[in-house]
């Protein structure tokens, strides 16, 4: 394997660096050009990186003395985060975002996810996930709208809460390293398979799994901090943060596959409880923005539960669902823009039909409603949990998904069927600001196709996810 396989990572880092240079535009004409072409060029770079990943990443092997592994898991996870970033950039209304704003943080977070996906030892996995989570949390630092200034209190709280969870995970990883006498994932797996399942071992395992699962689900909720962030910033925090935590969680699930499944019901139960609570939150959330975050959290809870199956089909289903979950989690806030109260969505179907359709499809997919991508993932995870005998987990999580469905219907109803005159307070929905969105119709249509095609043409995608899970469980 050649170092050419690192081309997508290199392109992503270069793009992140280039976006930082956007703030250097001083004159009005240069700023206008940056505003016009900046997001388009970033999207182009992301699509190029995605193409390169699919092309070059198909080869399997290791680099740097085994420190970097390119396998099917890495291929799937990297392709998913690049696609999610592209979806987020394409779906965002760049007339309402500052530039570069949260763009560099999102791209750096994406790089962190790619590092975690290719990591072969515990600390590299943690580092990649930490970069992704912290970058995601820092993407919340830009206020919505074009007014200068930043809102620091929210993101500081987000980084602090994410940091605490990351520290707990680091401590648990350290304990696992000390127990196994090595940090390589293969060696830790082999050592743990031999070790008896005792309370001193179970506790750090549960802390690591719980911490990562909490990060996974908290990412779409701004890591628990009520940050007044820009739509793309919220999407980046959700997509990149969840991807980083999800990739690390799946990798840890692979490491623990050989250990007795004593910890599995706890994680599965926690995942199901998160799905249930997030579903309830989606059904009752006062605004569409919060409902969107809850919807994403609800779907990502299924991913956490999937890891508890501690076998190939479950991990494959979890990876498959993580892929679609981060695309939806990234795109939905960006598509919602500043339309936070549901009444503000009134008439969107008439003003921007493609955007409304993509918004509805993203929400419905996150709720796991068929025949969209999310349903396929949820079904596969449910089947895997059923095979593992965790029927009570499936039951709880399904109740959560029904509640999430109510949240999705509220968004769909408001976006498609609510007329502007029906809305009691159409306060913040000036139609003229929605229409000139940079990529509006075309990008929304492409996103809609992704959400439909990911499920209906699931054969190659699910096959790759399944191979990814196989790679997680195999020794290099």
């Amino acid at each position, binding site marked *: 394997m050649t170092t050419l396989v690192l081309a997508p990572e290199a392109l992503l880092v270069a793009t992140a660096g280039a976006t930082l240079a956007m703030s250097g535009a001083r004159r009005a004409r240069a700023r206008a050009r940056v505003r016009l072409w900046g997001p388009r060029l970033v999207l182009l770079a992301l699509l190029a990186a995605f193409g390169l990943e699919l092309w070059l990443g198909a080869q399997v092997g290791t680099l740097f003395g085994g420190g970097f592994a390119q396998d099917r898991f890495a291929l799937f996870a990297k392709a998913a985060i690049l696609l999610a970033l592209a979806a987020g950039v394409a779906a965002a209304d760049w007339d309402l975002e500052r530039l570069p704003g949260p763009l560099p943080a999102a791209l750096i977070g994406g790089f962190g996810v790619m590092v975690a996906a290719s990591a072969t030892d515990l600390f590299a996995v943690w580092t990649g996930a930490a970069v992704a989570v912290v970058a995601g949390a820092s993407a919340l630092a830009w206020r919505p709208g074009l007014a200068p200034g930043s809102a620091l209190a929210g993101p500081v709280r987000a980084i602090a809460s994410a940091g605490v969870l990351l520290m707990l995970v680091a401590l648990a990883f350290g304990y696992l390293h000390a127990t196994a006498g090595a940090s390589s994932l293969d060696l830790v797996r082999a050592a743990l398979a031999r070790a008896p399942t005792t309370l001193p071992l179970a506790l750090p395992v549960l802390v690591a799994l719980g911490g990562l699962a909490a990060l996974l689900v908290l990412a779409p909720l701004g890591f628990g901090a009520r940050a007044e962030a820009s739509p793309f910033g919220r999407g980046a925090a959700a997509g990149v943060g969840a991807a980083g935590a999800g990739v690390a969680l799946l990798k840890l699930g692979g490491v623990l596959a050989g250990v007795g499944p004593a910890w599995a019901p706890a994680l599965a139960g926690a995942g199901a409880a998160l799905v249930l609570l997030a579903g309830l939150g989606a059904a009752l959330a006062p605004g569409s923005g919060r409902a969107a975050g809850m919807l994403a959290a609800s779907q990502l809870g299924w991913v956490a539960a999937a890891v508890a199956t501690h076998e190939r089909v479950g991990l*494959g289903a979890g990876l498959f669902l993580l892929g679609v979950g981060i695309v939806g989690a990234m795109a939905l806030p960006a598509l919602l823009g500043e339309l936070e109260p549901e009444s503000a969505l009134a008439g969107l*179907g008439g003003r921007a039909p493609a955007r409304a359709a993509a918004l509805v499809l993203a929400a419905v997919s996150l709720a796991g409603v068929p025949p969209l991508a999310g349903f396929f993932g949820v*079904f596969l995870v449910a089947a895997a949990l059923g095979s593992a005998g965790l029927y009570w987990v499936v*039951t709880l999580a399904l109740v959560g998904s029904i509640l999430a469905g*109510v949240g999705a*219907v509220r968004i769909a109803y408001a976006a498609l069927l609510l007329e502007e005159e029906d809305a009691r307070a159409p306060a913040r929905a000036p139609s003229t600001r929605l229409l000139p969105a940079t990529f509006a119709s075309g990008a929304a249509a492409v996103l809609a196709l992704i959400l439909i095609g990911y499920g209906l043409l*699931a054969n190659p995608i699910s096959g790759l996810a399944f191979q990814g899970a196989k790679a997680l469980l195999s020794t290099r």
Partner: protein
Amino acid sequence: MSAFLAAIPNPTATPIPVFGSGVVGFSFLLSTIVWVPVVWALVLATVPNPRGRYDRFFFGSSFWVTFASLALSFFGYIQFQAFTTGPQYEEKLPWLPAFGITYHLGADGISMLLLLANGIVALAAILASTGIRARPREYYVLLLLAEAAFNGLVCARDLFMVVLFWSAAALPLALLVAGWGVLPGRRLGAALRLLGYWGLGSAVLLLAVVVLAGAAAGGTFDLDYLGKTALPGRTQVVIGILVVVAAATRLGLWPLHGWAREVLAEAPAGIAILVAGAGMRGGGYLLIRLLDATLHDGTRLLAPLLAGLAGLTAIWCALAAFRSRDLRLVAAYLAVVPGCVTVLGTAGVTPLSIDGAAFSLFGGAAASALIVGACALVAERAQTRDLALLGGLAGRLPRLSWLLVLAGIGVIGLPLTGTFVGELMVFFGAFKIASLGAFGVAAGLLIAGAAVAWMLQRVLFGAPSPDAPVASDTNLTETWALAVLAGALIYLGVVPGGPKLAGIPFLDPGVINVVNASVADIASAYAPPAPPVPGAGG
């Protein structure tokens, strides 16, 4: 081009070329019926409609797509090999092979019958939607999606696809009720109820499928495999209960009937027809397909519960219809009653009762759709749904009055209607085994008959109220919408075995014949053991 065509895997699992044999080779009949409405819905969704310029186009094109789908179902029906068991027109392709999921469609006699019923009901639903003025594009897009989901459910031979299509109908229908419901203050509540109950049904069905596939441990969701797998009795009962709950949410069985009352009373006429005619029948179909055909021991054990549920629901709904003072609520309660006959048939577990249950799916579809459609149009045309204000409409709405009378007769299953044939078979087949349930359903039908008579007397022949608004009869399209259903109901009652010319079947092989072979296959598991031959054995 030929290389491209050669690269497409052959989807036909059965070696017998059935559809269009000798006329036209067409391997994707069921996929065409299921997916063409979806594709057309996506096309319509992208058509701009400045100032309502294409409103008629949305109606017209949806009508023709549904008509073509019905025509294909009819071709499939008349060329169906009536005396062979197993699914026909099969299509089987790997979909998610890593997870044991296949794209498997196929139609046995019961599926074929329901496909035809769904087509007729969907056509009636579109014809009854001519009054839709607000957002016609969105309306027809959602209606076509729901129609495709109902068709997909009856064709699916893989449990993943069963869950997929079963669940896929809920969202479009909820949006249709929320967006075009009659009373603005109540439509959102009705839509959320529909979503809640059907969502619960979807979740429970998914759980049942997960348990079934997990217990079978075959790494597949294919019904052909799972139907032949012998599971422990306890597991069968657990799965059976889940299937009954899922079916009850669709059929509106007590105590899961709340959505039916709200949705059938609040939805616009076209959607009420679709829900009552196609949506609710899905529950009966599920009971036959998953309970009777797959879980034989579980069905035997659950039969008394199922029969009791059918009886209780029939009595409850009939009494509620009697008590209601809202015409559309009366229709909503009455529309649940034919489903109880189907449930009783599935609980009877005899060849005759299951035959009747399958038959009653068609008759029940036509009767339920007709009663809710007719009452919705009466309420619309008379500008009130209050029974205290309705009266003496027979003279003012002659066409609609005839159709309403026929709907009432159909619901209670009087002779010469399709429901009568189904009821007869169900009662003869089930009375001995599930006598209490059968008595309950019979009592429910009796009370429903009284409710129908009272409602008809009040609405059509009672003294006109001086406070009643002006009423006008249906237009031609709306009349056709109900006439299609009425025609199907009477045709099925008059010639259930198909018309014959000089003793030779003419055009229609006969619903009974199409259903019979499939039911015989299912019912063979419930056949009583053969009596010992004297002198045989040791």
